[in-house]
């Protein structure tokens, strides 16, 4: 499987993502410019990644303008055909704005930008992954939350070192400590933590590789 990493004006984790996928996961990566539309080099077994950053300066709302770019129109169509899409940080915000994932990411509850390592769990294991965001407070209506739970769409929740999902471990006020979700069909993934920043022994943390593996992106 190969990867496409979309570069928007204001993306700043695109090269980190490319480096992690190419050098740490040994994957073929094609960088995709937001003004282009062509995804014909990918099959639905491949994965398009929306990286972190501040696309379009976070104008209006985080991710709101990126959603209407040429490349996003193709990505939305790709996802609807069953292609895999991963959004990290700003990429998660773009996926919510584009309707590929439910809910929205609001300004952090304490008004602060947070940049630190946090623990997240998938209910089985605990991973240490860095976060870096000012708008990461996942919010959705009660009905949507119930649906996410019923369909096992909650991928990761902020937790303490032992894996307990507690309020003290919540870095941004996200509902139910939600750090990452997937769509109902299971081919679109969004998460605030940055696995690409934790996939190299040189960085002293390789938990990110486990995240890519869990999402089925290391095949």
């Amino acid at each position, binding site marked *: 499987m190969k990867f496409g990493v979309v570069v928007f004006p204001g993306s700043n984790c695109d090269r980190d993502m490319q480096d992690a996928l190419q050098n740490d996961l040994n994957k073929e990566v094609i960088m995709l410019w937001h003004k282009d539309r062509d995804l014909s080099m990918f099959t639905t077994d491949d994965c398009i990644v929306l990286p972190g950053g501040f696309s379009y300066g976070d104008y209006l709302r985080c991710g709101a303008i990126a959603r209407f770019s040429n490349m996003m129109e193709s990505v939305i169509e790709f996802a609807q055909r069953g292609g895999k899409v991963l959004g990290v940080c700003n990429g998660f915000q773009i996926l919510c704005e584009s309707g590929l994932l439910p809910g929205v990411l609001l300004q952090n509850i304490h*008004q602060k930008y947070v940049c630190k390592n946090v623990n997240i769990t998938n209910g089985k294991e605990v991973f240490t992954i860095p976060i870096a965001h000012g708008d990461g407070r996942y919010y959705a209506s009660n009905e949507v939350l119930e649906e996410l739970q019923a369909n096992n769409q909650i991928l990761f929740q902020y937790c303490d070192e032992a894996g307990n999902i507690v309020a003290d471990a919540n870095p941004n006020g996200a509902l139910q400590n939600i750090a990452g979700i997937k769509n109902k069909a299971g081919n679109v993934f969004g998460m605030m933590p940055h696995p690409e920043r934790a996939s190299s022994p040189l960085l002293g943390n390789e938990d990110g590789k486990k995240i890519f593996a869990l999402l089925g992106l290391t095949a």
Partner: protein
Amino acid sequence: MTTYHVQIKVMPLKDLLDPQGKAVLGGLHNLGLNGISDVRIGKHITLQIEAESELSAKTKAEEACKKLLANPVMEFYEIEMVQG
């Protein structure tokens, strides 16, 4: 075709905590301005629409709000048509 001037108010939903408003409220209290509460911060957007009638201008403004200017998961909006 007539040019219609439109003013749009976009506000965070009433049930949602608005951290920006909370921070500004703290600032107002620090200034000694007491008796102020529930500060909420939204956006005010002005735009002009060329249309054949006020109704069609308003319909276009509604579409702009629904598709881009406001996100109904977190915000509500009000449209006001202003005499040019």
